[in-house]
């Protein structure tokens, strides 16, 4: 029965905890976004619900549930209903392979739901399915803005997915493993975060991640001045909130993977320097969360600072700048590594 406990019961407990943390985290990420953007624009942001708007996400969540759910008359009801789910489910299950603590943490059960030897590819595969939800949602609405938004959105997502893949290869060349746990362990044993080995790969990965999640400055699919709301214009109430949650979950995924691949995951800064061991007061999962929060902050900061690209600029950056740079990065890394073999 050991197998049952180790691979069903314990993971189930972790999954429930992770889903709870994610849902709460996403709710408060929206508050953080509104607050930070407000401060950047010399406003106060939400102030009414609770102290400094601290209960705002709960009010928003309740509103999503009790709001009328409209299915436009021309829409394809079945596809319209399942499309948000196709976006949301992949955004969540990526977290089954993302490690937030070392294998001996959490009373020896490991700081992850499961450690599989193809974890990184699994994450890539799962997030490549999420784009289908966007296309189907836009198509099923049978309305002009959603359809245009979905076309733009999916074209953008797939364009940047290619460059992102090449960016990840740069890390793989150094790490030689697809297991995210091993990738972090490798950064510990090498005594250096992969960001310092692969800075170009990181920049490509992070910018492509912004484009993949349709965030500013890559938010053309939802450019409200041109396309109203993009692919989810016709969505309302709970179904809209599913798309919304999926987008924020994807932001967390991109940040978590950036931390895992490039910034040592759960490791404290300078994990090989013994003089800094007082930093171990903060447990590894907390280090992971702190780093993820920094990247989420950068997402919001960029949104508050940069203007939006034009669509032709967007496609040009993806295909003509990021892709060749990422390819060159792979080959140059390979050539340099030859010296160390």
């Amino acid at each position: 029965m050991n197998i049952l406990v180790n691979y069903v019961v314990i993971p189930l407990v972790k999954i429930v905890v992770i889903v709870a943390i994610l849902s709460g985290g996403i709710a408060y990420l929206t508050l953080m976004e509104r607050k930070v953007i407000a401060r950047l624009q010399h406003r106060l942001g939400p102030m009414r619900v609770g102290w400094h708007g601290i209960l705002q996400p709960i009010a928003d969540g309740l509103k999503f549930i009790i709001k009328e759910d409209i299915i436009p008359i021309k829409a394809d009801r079945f596809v319209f209903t399942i499309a948000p789910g196709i976006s949301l489910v992949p955004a969540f299950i990526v977290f089954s392979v993302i490690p937030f603590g070392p294998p001996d943490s959490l009373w020896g059960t490991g700081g992850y739901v499961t450690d599989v030897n193809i974890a990184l590819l699994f994450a890539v595969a799962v997030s490549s399915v999420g784009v289908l939800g966007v296309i189907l949602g836009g198509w099923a609405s049978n309305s002009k803005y959603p359809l245009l938004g979905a076309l733009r959105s999916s074209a953008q997502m797939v364009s940047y997915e290619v460059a992102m893949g090449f960016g990840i290869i740069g890390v793989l060349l150094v790490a030689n493993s697809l297991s995210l746990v091993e990738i972090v362990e490798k950064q510990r044993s090498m005594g250096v975060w992969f960001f310092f080995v692969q800075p170009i790969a990181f920049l490509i990965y992070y910018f492509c991640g912004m484009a993949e999640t349709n965030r500013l400055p890559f938010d053309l699919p939802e450019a409200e001045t041109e396309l109203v709301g993009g692919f989810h214009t016709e969505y309302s109430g709970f179904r809209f909130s599913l798309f919304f949650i999926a987008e924020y979950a994807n932001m967390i995924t991109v940040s978590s993977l950036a931390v895992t691949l490039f910034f040592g995951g759960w490791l404290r800064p300078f994990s090989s320097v013994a003089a800094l061991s007082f930093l171990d007061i903060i447990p590894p999962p907390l280090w992971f969360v702190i780093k993820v929060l920094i990247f989420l902050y950068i997402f919001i900061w960029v949104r508050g600072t940069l203007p939006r690209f034009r669509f032709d600029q967007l496609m040009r950056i993806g295909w003509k700048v990021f892709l060749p740079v990422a390819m060159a990065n792979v080959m140059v890394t390979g050539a340099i590594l030859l010296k160390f073999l």
Partner: protein
Amino acid sequence: MLVSYVPIIIFLVVAISLPVVGLAAGRLLRPFNPFKEKLMPYECGVDPEGDARERYSVRYYIIAILFVVFDVETIFLFPWAVLYRKLALFGFIEMLIFILILMVGYIYIWKKGALEWV
């Protein structure tokens, strides 16, 4: 080990149940009061004109094809990168040839203007 994939399936079930339960529970709470104007596709407040599903630029289609092609290419790079220490120089030259052949195609589509979005 195969059994380490079981938690992923459990996560999948949990993740699917979230929207299903949410939608079902919300049905008891939310109002339901549809009328013709409310159910119309949104078009800046006026009655929708024509059908939404019209023909769109073929460029989207080119992007999708190029994506498939480059995606296949990246897939080959994954095992290569994982095994790089074993393959060493031999592997480097192999991949160099592979990439160079594909660069021909990349330069071609660049020059042909397929990456241009007018």
